[in-house]
């Protein structure tokens, strides 16, 4: 029998510490998958909101009804001759009604309200000279206001970025707690196997051999536990409403496309973490044994 083969046998398989490693790894992997999903989702939201709002803008015309058409024509003339504007389209009343309906309800008499006219702009990749456009509109169509959505876009992207930071901090905390739990379990396993350590030292085994005997077992358990926790969490994410579904709450939380591969890295990373944490603990405990 080889050293490696006997190494896997010298530590008895029973013991509460082994179950502690398995359960804590499973629980932490479960949480890590959700933190990772939150991170990926918030990154995706930030990118989507940023892209969607980056190349669109609106011109709002608030003028008396008798001047509305002339002001609109002036604004369209200005926009047509402005570099960086790909398209300018006057929104029809039905589109405006649909926008307001989400906030004010379906039965509002919109005809009776002095609503501004909206012109939707699609900008080129370079975009217009925004300050120059504002000045031209102020001079030629004083009732028009150019809105490039910056005041909406910035806080949305900031919120998404902050959410992503929280998720990443959560992942780090989960990793730290996992390492601490495994170190604790390794310490307990070593303490409850004093006889094994004494016998191995007696026959000339080096600390590395003894440590590896424990570390292999603990890392393997951490891998199994983490794989189970990851699998359950991925199934739970699959069960959540998907983006575009009829249930908007939590819709879109999770992975899409290749990002489904990301949680698969959690079990091997947990095993590596368990290896490092238990190896450090084992050497520290063994230093106290002659």
């Amino acid at each position, binding site marked *: 029998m080889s*050293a490696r083969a006997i190494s896997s046998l010298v530590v008895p398989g029973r013991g509460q510490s082994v179950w502690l490693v398995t359960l804590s790894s499973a629980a932490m992997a479960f949480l890590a998958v959700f933190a990772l999903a939150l991170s990926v989702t918030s990154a995706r939201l930030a990118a989507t909101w940023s892209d969607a709002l980056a190349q669109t803008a609106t011109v709002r015309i608030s003028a008396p009804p008798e001047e509305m058409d002339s002001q609109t024509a002036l604004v369209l003339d200005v926009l047509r001759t402005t570099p960086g504007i790909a398209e300018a389209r006057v929104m029809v009343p039905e589109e405006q009604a649909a926008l307001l309906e989400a906030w004010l309800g379906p039965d509002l008499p919109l005809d009776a309200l002095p609503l501004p006219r909206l012109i939707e702009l699609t900008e080129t990749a370079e975009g217009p000279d925004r300050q120059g456009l504002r000045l031209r509109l102020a001079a030629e169509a004083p009732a028009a206001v150019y809105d490039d959505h910056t005041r909406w876009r910035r806080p949305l992207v900031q919120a998404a970025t902050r959410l992503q930071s929280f998720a990443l901090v959560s992942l780090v905390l989960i990793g730290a707690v996992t390492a601490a739990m495994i170190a604790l379990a390794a310490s307990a396993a070593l303490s409850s196997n004093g*006889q094994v350590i004494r*016998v191995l030292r007696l026959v*000339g085994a080096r600390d590395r051999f003894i440590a590896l005997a424990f570390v292999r077992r603990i890392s393997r358990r951490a891998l199994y536990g983490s794989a189970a926790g990851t699998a359950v969490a991925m199934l739970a994410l699959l069960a959540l409403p998907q983006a575009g579904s009829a249930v908007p709450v939590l819709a879109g939380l999770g992975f899409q496309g290749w990002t489904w591969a990301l949680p698969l890295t959690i079990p091997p990373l947990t095993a590596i973490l368990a290896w490092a944490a238990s190896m450090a603990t084992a050497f520290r405990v063994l230093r106290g044994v002659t």
Partner: protein
Amino acid sequence: MIVFEDVSHDYGGGPLFRDVSVRLEQGSFHFLTGPSGAGKSTFLKLCYGELLPSSGKVTLLNRDLREMTRDQLAETRERIGVVHQDCQFLDHLTVEQNVGLPLTATDRPLRESDVSDLLGWVGLGARADALPPTLSGGERQRAALARAIIGAPNVLLADEPTGNLDWEMSQRLMMLLIELNRMGTAVLIATHDLNLIRFAKAQVQARVMRISGRKLQLAGAEL
């Protein structure tokens, strides 16, 4: 092989022995006797580095015990076979796996036929697959002795190795140790068994040391 120079050892309650100087040379055969509690087991523990002396110098296989790193101590123990009074096995491994442990745990080649032959020699051929808790006291001592010598050690230390054996098996095991000694292994046996000492002295040139009154003395020839 093993050199003690002015070695003293204190427990919490006071000195166990003082100023012990002795050399165990290659191929030597020593017995260690003395009343219970005199410090025989402690002396053996100093011989394989489980304990450090309170004062004085212990040299194991040309290395100062105090200066050794943990890996050097492990390397030294590879070359020292030890039979403990309480045997000390891994209870979840079979007798065969326990006996092969000094080789497998130190990454040295192990031939299963060697283990089988050795187990046959100590009368445990039929118990190779048994677990240590199922062995009798005598069987445990024989298995511990087999484990101590499987790696062909330079030094063999045994604490009452025949305490639970009948006379016939004691003689048989003693012959095994004598053969090992003839091949160059230094042997040190702590025992109360005067018949065993007489038997060994008839076969091999053995010296008898006695711990008494906190001193190590060479015993007389009247044994």
